């Protein structure tokens, strides 16, 4: 095993995903400090060359590229053999990917293949001497856990939008194509994509989120939040109370048993701030709360708050943002 980092990269429509940019640029920064090497693993079929260039711009030049038409519909069964081959070849001590739907699926079996440790949903990485310490939150954000490692191999999924993108010197990518044998899946077969969600960014990578709670009384009132989100280019999320009432699909629930989000700005409307909800937004950079009850616990978490009726405040906010954003 070498002192090096392998980043498993995600891309979409010929562009590198933000979470991959964060992890690549961060790894390349650590590499400079600690003398480690960084590799990237990319998979896909006839992927846009821009993806490789963007990896180079993050400061990572050595790319392993798995090319196969089956990688267009990736799943664990298809990807594990390719990634295991890359790891066996570049022998990294650390393997990183985003705490994204595919990352969360992929890394536990991957770590198990190498009988290795894994840290899930990391929000910060510190360098200590020439090794790394991984920080995460546990028990609904009430406790911080710091995981230090010396020599053993470690896999980690890193929360999108938590560590930020760094500016590094661009390097020219050199691509090594891995032509591993990929068998069509026999155990796990995608039969059908049942329903595509709307065009908004998935919550975990959204930079701005408008989030609604039980303060919204009726199904037809949610347009208030949709208008605000429209003006801000925000994604929409909800508390469990809203989901359980059947107003919105479960995939949009934020919180301890829903999605963990880390946007730059989140606006909570009619949300009390229960610990299970707050657990899902603890790494949001700026929390703005609208609640008519000045004692609501959300004001203990929020950075800004308006005490007032959301039915009046939200439309006023929409109008004001429209005005200053010239929309």
């Amino acid at each position: 095993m070498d002192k090096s980092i392998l980043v498993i990269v995600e891309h979409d429509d010929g562009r590198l995903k933000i979470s991959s940019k964060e992890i690549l640029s961060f790894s390349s920064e650590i590499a400079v400090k600690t003398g480690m090497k960084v590799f990237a693993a990319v998979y896909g079929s006839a992927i846009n060359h821009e993806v490789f260039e963007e990896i180079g711009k993050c400061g990572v030049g050595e790319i392993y590229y798995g090319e196969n038409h089956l990688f267009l519909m990736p799943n664990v069964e298809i990807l594990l053999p390719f990634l295991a081959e890359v790891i066996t070849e570049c022998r990294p001590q650390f393997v990183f990917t985003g705490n994204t739907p595919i990352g969360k699926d992929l890394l536990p079996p991957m770590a198990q293949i190498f009988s290795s440790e894994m840290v899930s949903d990391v929000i910060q990485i510190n360098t200590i001497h020439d090794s790394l310490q991984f920080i995460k939150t546990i028990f609904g954000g009430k406790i911080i856990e710091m995981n230090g490692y010396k020599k053993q191999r470690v896999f980690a999924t890193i929360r999108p939008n938590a560590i930020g993108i760094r500016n590094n010197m661009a390097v020219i990518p050199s691509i090594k194509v891995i032509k591993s044998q990929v068998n069509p899946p026999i155990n796990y077969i995608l039969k059908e994509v049942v329903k595509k969600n709307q065009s908004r960014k998935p919550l975990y990578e959204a930079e701005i989120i408008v989030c609604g709670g039980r303060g919204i009384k009726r199904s037809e009132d949610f347009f208030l939040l949709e208008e605000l989100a429209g003006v801000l280019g925000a994604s929409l999320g909800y508390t469990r109370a809203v989901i359980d009432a059947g107003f919105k699909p479960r995939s949009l629930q934020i919180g301890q048993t829903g999605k963990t989000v880390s946007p730059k700005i989140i606006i909570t409307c009619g949300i009390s701030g229960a610990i299970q909800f707050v657990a899902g937004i603890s790494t949001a950079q700026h929390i703005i709360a609208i609640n008519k009850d000045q004692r609501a616990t959300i004001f203990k978490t929020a950075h800004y708050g308006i005490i007032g009726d959301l039915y009046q405040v939200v439309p006023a906010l929409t109008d004001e943002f429209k005005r200053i954003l010239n929309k």
Partner: protein
Amino acid sequence: MKILVLMKEIIDTECRIRLDSNHNIDEEDIKYIFNPSDEHALEEALRIKETVGGEVIIYAIARQASTPSFKYLLAKGADRVFIIPSNESNPVLMSQMIGNAVYNESGDFDLILAGVMGIDRNNGQIPGRLSIILDIPLVTMVEKIDLVKDRMICYREAETQLEMIEVRLPAVITVQRGINKLRYPTANSLIKNNESKIIYLSNQLSITHEKANIKYAYPKTRPPVKLFDGQEPDNAVRELIKALIQDKIL
């Protein structure tokens, strides 16, 4: 059909959680609950058993003191509980313990169900690791399942879409809360003496494994909130946006 359900007891996050003088989690005055999505895994197993027959067997790594809460799960209709007594929280070791136990006690299982993730430490590693240890496929984030002969049709939430997956059994499937509504045990089944159905296994592990050096701390306290009075909404909103611009957020 022989269905195994993985159930974890976790610290209830509503408790006050403190660190002791050694900076470890202070377990005194702590309340435990079953991990919520695991309870939905059990519910789904019971429903499958009611349709096609078979057995529902719970596997748990748990404290010795937890017997009463497992009796509650038996009262719901589970047939047996295997407890591996341990307070281990390392996923590598936990998966190996469960893997060994399953191999020894229920090698002929058809399906393993579990919740998507333990909401205590947010690891979500055991099902994926177990799929490698037992060499069976893994389907995660499932919202609906239908059994079709030796295969399971799973509707799962992917990045921005709902997928329909056909998976060959045996498999590990992780489920989320939306998949079903929990039942309550009847009063009669609650008073039944079913302790003999709770079986403690040994947790001997033959692997050596180097764990992380773990330290705990409290999170930083947050700065106080900047509040605006929304009696006059237009005014409050303008003040808020002014503050956001001043603080360089906009």
